[in-house]
């Protein structure tokens, strides 16, 4: 309840040291990774498979996903916003039930680190097409 008051009062202000993430933070991080992989299947999937020596005509099924990659990219960005909210606009530690995951500060540090690692990977995925011609 206390966090609601703080959030309402501070608007979009960051609460960098506000405490552990809400339970949804994990869902957000998993969502970023899952949607990011789904968005990469069409185009990076065949390259990864060829690189590790896996081949087969079935791979053309992956390339058929290309028109839908924007859906997955939007989903990835959506999960990033969601995870950011859960991790950086988290309730105060005092609001967490003692003994839960939420009450452990190191959990939040880990989630923040994972969030930024995931963000860098997503950024790489988004800018990769502009650097790809260098490898043609």
């Amino acid at each position, binding site marked *: 309840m206390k966090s609601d008051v703080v959030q309402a009062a501070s608007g979009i202000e960051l609460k960098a040291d506000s405490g552990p993430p809400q339970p949804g933070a994990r869902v957000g991080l998993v969502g970023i990774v899952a949607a990011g992989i789904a968005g990469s299947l069409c185009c990076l999937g*065949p390259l990864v498979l060829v690189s590790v020596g896996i081949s*087969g005509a079935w791979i053309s099924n992956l390339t058929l996903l290309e028109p839908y990659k924007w859906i997955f990219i939007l989903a990835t960005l959506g999960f990033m916003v969601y995870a950011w909210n859960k991790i950086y606009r988290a309730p105060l530690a005092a609001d967490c039930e003692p003994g839960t995951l939420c009450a452990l500060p190191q959990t939040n540090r880990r989630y923040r680190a994972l969030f930024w690692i995931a963000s860098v990977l997503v950024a790489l995925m988004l800018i990769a097409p502009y650097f790809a*011609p260098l490898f*043609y």
Partner: protein
Amino acid sequence: MKKSSLISALALAAAFSVPALAAQKTVVLSVPSMNCAACPITVRAALNKVPGIAKVKATLVPPEVVVTFDDAKTDVQQLMQATRDAGYPSSVKSGNH
């Protein structure tokens, strides 16, 4: 003297002409499904695994790949097989094969 140098010249020419029997050929494959930024990299990587490939140039626009290969070691069918097995079916557009 003159005769022996002629013979050695012939021998030399013969030595060099043997590899020339396995001529390098160039083919242009049309790869219509190559429609994303990373796709030409994949196609090139797949073709480079085929033995006897000298040069591969894949482009997104137009979606084609120009392959120079040793026709004693591989043929156009194998090249098409390679792109198909990487997920990108191709067809011959042109070339001296």
